[in-house]
């Protein structure tokens, strides 16, 4: 068993949860670490540029990150990612609600002790 302080590369989902919501052609996704200590580590890694790259194939125009340090939470606002929004999109998920889990698939580097379910993740970061 590896040390709990070891850094592992894991999907964001292993350390944080979140929720997506839409208004028009704009999507917001919250990212909330399970452990408060992960907040600062995520602040350094979850740059708007990295999030924008995740949605580049959808031609997202812009990502703005709002920080909520009292809640240890981030709010990512992604413009023009919904290919027309719920009423115009050909996508099955016109609301974009499933996109929270696209963001939660982003790889991040974290000490093992901050993982939600550290027993599930091996020394190589794989579940």
């Amino acid at each position, binding site marked *: 068993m590896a040390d709990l302080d070891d850094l592992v590369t894991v999907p964001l989902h292993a350390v944080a949860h979140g*929720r997506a919501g839409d208004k028009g052609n704009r999507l917001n996704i*919250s990212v909330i670490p399970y452990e408060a200590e992960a907040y600062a580590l995520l602040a350094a890694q979850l740059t708007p540029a990295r999030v924008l790259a995740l949605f580049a194939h959808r031609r997202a125009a812009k990502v703005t990150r709002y920080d909520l340090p009292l809640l240890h939470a981030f709010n990512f606002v992604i413009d023009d990612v919904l290919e027309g929004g719920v009423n115009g999109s*050909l996508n099955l998920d016109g609301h974009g609600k499933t996109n929270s889990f696209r963001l939660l698939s982003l790889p991040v580097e974290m000490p093992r002790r901050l993982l939600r379910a550290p027993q599930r993740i091996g020394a190589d970061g794989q579940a």
Partner: protein
Amino acid sequence: MFRIGNGAGFSGDRIDAAGPVVDTLIARGGPAAIFFEVLGERTVALAQLEKRRDPARGYEPMLERLLEPILVKCARHGIAIVGNFGAANPPGAARAIARLAEGLGLGDLRIAIVEGDDIRDGVDLARLEVYAADAALDQGASAIVSANAYLNAQPIVEALRAGAQVVATGRCGDPSLALAPLIHHYGWEENDWDRLALGSAVGHLLECGSQLTGGVYYDPGYKDIPDPANIGFPIAEVGADGRMFVGKADATGGVVNLQVVKEQLIYEVHDPANYITPDVTLDFSGVSLRQDGADRVEVMGVRGKPAPERLKATVCFEGGWLGEGEISVAGPNCLARAKSIAEVLLERLRRRKLKVQSRVDLIGVASVHDDDSGTLWRSYSGPEPADIRVRLAVAGSAHDDVDQAAREVLALLCCGPAGSGGARWRTTQRIRTQSYLVPRASVHPRVSVKPAGDWL
């Protein structure tokens, strides 16, 4: 202490959710109200289309099913019911509630409607500023189906002051539905921004129903909740001192913890320091939360700033037609067969020169995260799935082109690759929306309150 519960978070929500909320409000005692938020951005346009077909309809289709289990209990215990179930036809909703009330022996039930949100006849859209989140959409010259301004809480307050026991509105701010009973109970002033923000935060947190109590939240092994088949809907308590707690109906599943409250607090919010409603601009940047026993969280630090000068109005346009067709392949080599189906369908649309926009999804490889050009499934290099459903989606202004395009999926039952089956196709009328900012002076809310018998 005033309690307000939520009985539905969207049109299509569970119809048995409100019962345990009302039972809990009665068991706790004290003044209380329940609200229903059932009017999504385009629900009002779908209701307008229904009203065109049948002028008596065009209100929330599940209205009677939502209210029947609770109406007698609420009337007996003085629990006001507020909901935007009027949709495109608040008088129609009032008549439906009145019929239900008479049948339940509540002929004196005071039913109110709020109208005036429909601005189709009073406003020139060309002169209005487009709401920022929509700026990239081009609606062209499509026909308008509906145009509704988001009214604030004040007309609902007026109805409650006139003794309304049920209030059916059309379009209003979703949080306004919860704010209004609080203004009515506590007599908050129209410019007491911190109090209005407190009440609007209650509405914001509760307006999606179970999303505050475990819905859109549970994630097995990571975020588990008890009994997800019976998630209890939320109840908030607001004190005269401005303290606010959120919880849920007794004897139900779901959870109210810091994680789920954080998720819902930020849901559909852009700048947390400026969440705009017709009643007040909320500032969530100083919010903190405290778990106060099982399934109970205190929400602190909500601040308010003046309401925006203009109201948001959502306009729905006829958006042509959507056609969808699906067909499945499974077993050995299904990925190659699915890709072949995708390419053949797109080639068929080109050959037939059908005037449609198109997209293919490979469900089982990428059903929702892809873009219209199929970047994700085209570049997919992982293991072959056991089973793939190919989905063609097309949009166009001519129904026949859209229908013909979708039927190309059906034709694959004979013309497609080996082992394709389970084809389905359908067309649906589309609605497109665009939001604008409307001067308050050009919007004129109207309130009518009458006993059930007088609505019939």
